[in-house]
């Protein structure tokens, strides 16, 4: 075996070793990164401003409104205010009259106000609607499906969705009349 050949062999061996080590290290790195990422990533998906609003379809229960059910995706092209509420929630009760006041005006401008009710008894919702003379659609989410889809924690929670179906603003907690009007203006279709 000549000296050159030995050198050549050695080089080859070194190269093989480098490749082997690199592959093992990369595999281990991938495994470690995977372990860390899956553990640390928050499992809950929440929808924030900038996300597109996930679609849903619910039964409409306000007898003052003539729609029988509403699907969000049917409202593309309109601005949508999506409000989650319940009769037993005091701040919801406070903002309902504001919404009712602005509803007819903004409906003409192409902004829909849709509310998702989280109660379990239709009777209490009917009494509530009558008390405040609400005319906007009230959707019943009896099995909390849409609530879970949007991962709603506090009520009221309100999403302002533009004509392209994108969430422009998410508000957790009650709204004042001024703020409500401002956000509704932001989602008017241009």
């Amino acid at each position: 075996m000549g000296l050159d050949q030995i050198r050549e062999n050695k080089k080859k061996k070194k190269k093989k070793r480098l490749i082997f080590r690199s592959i093992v290290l990369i595999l281990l790195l991938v495994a470690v990164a995977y372990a860390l990422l899956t553990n640390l990533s928050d499992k809950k998906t929440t929808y924030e401003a900038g996300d597109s609003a996930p679609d849903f379809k619910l039964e409409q229960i306000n007898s003052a409104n003539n729609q029988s059910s509403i699907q969000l995706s049917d409202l593309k092209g309109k601005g949508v205010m999506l409000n989650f509420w319940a009769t037993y929630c005091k701040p919801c009760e406070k903002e309902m009259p504001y919404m009712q006041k602005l509803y007819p005006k903004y409906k003409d401008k192409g902004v829909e106000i849709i509310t998702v009710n989280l109660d379990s008894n239709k009777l209490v919702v009917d009494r509530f609607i009558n008390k405040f003379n609400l005319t906007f659609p009230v959707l019943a989410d009896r099995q909390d499906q849409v609530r879970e889809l949007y991962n709603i924690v506090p009520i009221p929670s309100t999403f302002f969705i533009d004509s392209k179906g994108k969430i422009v603003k998410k508000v957790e907690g009650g709204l004042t009349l001024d703020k409500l009007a401002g956000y509704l203006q932001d989602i008017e279709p241009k």
Partner: protein
Amino acid sequence: MNNIKCECGHVNPEGTVLCEACGKPIEKNQHIDGNDKKKLLNMRYDGSARRSQTYNKSIIDKIWSFFSSVKVGVWLIVIALVASAIGTIYPQEAYIPSDAPDRDPAVFYEDAYGLPGKIFYQLGFHNLYSSWWYLLIISLIGVSLVICSLDRFVPLHRALKMQKPKRHETFINRQRFYSETENVTDEERETIKQNLKKQRYRVSEQDGHILAEKGRFSRWGPYVNHIGLIIILIAALLRTTPWFYLDEYMWVREGEQKVVPGTNGEYYIKNNNFIMELYDKNDKRFQAALKKKGEDVPSNFQTNATIYKKSGDTVAGAPPKLEKVKDVSIRLNHPAKFGGYTVYQSGYQQNEFKSMTFNLHEKNDPKKVAGTFKVDFGNVKSSYDLGNGYKVNVENYYPEYYLDEEDKIPRSKSKYARFPAFVFSVTAPDRKKPEMSFVGIGKNIDATGKNKYKLGVEKYEPLYASGLPVKRDYTLPIFAIGAIIFMIGVIQGMYWQHRRIWLHPKKDSTLLLAGHTNKNWHGLRRDIEKAISNTSVKIVEDQQELE
């Protein structure tokens, strides 16, 4: 050009301590195993070149040699152990007692344990076992395990495969068991050889030099053991993926149908009813024990449920298309199984009402009942017709009634019928105007004070909610395989020993005899005693004891 050529002609890789073929110590590498300071040779890894100790050039090699250090591995384990121990000093975040005054971890630890608690929280020990650095250390232990094993297994395997019967004299006389006998005949050597064979040694010969070897496979025990550990670590890694491991908890009320969490909306469960059974007080077998206990003792918790599977995609909110899978009765230790999921009976709650039955009677005489009606809290109607012209209207309903201090009006705290109250108006044939009354638990208020009729609660049904954990664990078989391999490795390394005996005849018919084993030196000595019986060969001396 760093290979080292031994005088026997074998070319050893850089970093070799003892020539792979003849065992002669390679002069410039004796510091690696500390042979330069001792008489006896360090036989760990048979003096082969652990690659990590040889050269570091590229970054890859440097990272590799960092992880291939046992010292680094031990330190990682020590850090993980200390951290794990500290994590157990105070409860983890998930185990903050539910009756704590404030369960917010930012407040709880300082409140309950003072300054040490605050430090514990601020250093992140309250969520230790899923914190990024803890997971990183555990993963690095895994990396160290893989690289350390690879880096030692390969050269050791190579060295043991290559060893020649003919060893260098210094290799022989620097073994722990050693003896030197003059004037040994070839016949005597042949006797020893046959004796060794009888003891099931594998004997190889080269120019009269003899190597007898037994139980080499026990040397692979630690590596088999490490493979088991790596499989266990992989299983732990897979456990973090929802497909392999799922652990959810759901509450389902009686009559309620809910999606089973973690199944991506594939399965639904409907709680038909919950049953709690008590031990019979009149049963003679239990009488004494129950009397001693002084209270009811449950004998069974059971949720009768129906499992449904979604059969088609629907948009969220729309009623799902469901196919019935089966009816199940979930009891303690008798979980329901479907589609790889297991649902256990774990808890129950009874703080809601299912229904209430009212009777309408004359205020002054509870015996004069005009009619009864049942209010189902799952579906409260706006009016109940009692017949004979009696009718009760529900003006308002408060599922969890309280009186708002601010504006002095009745309100409900939630949608759950935990403390129901009603505003009823009663129409009776003998009254011109409807009579209003407010009826709740422990409350019965006559709005005007002039009512003729009164509503009384005749009976009620409690509503149970079942607490059902949903689990799926596909990692258990992997853990089991890892554990079995681990145990095989332990047994392999523990109950067998790698024994080697060398016979080294010199030209002047002196016979050098040396022996090495990784454990149980006494056993090796007895093997040698048997082998040299009926010969003039001297028994080996333990050179370690002589030192």
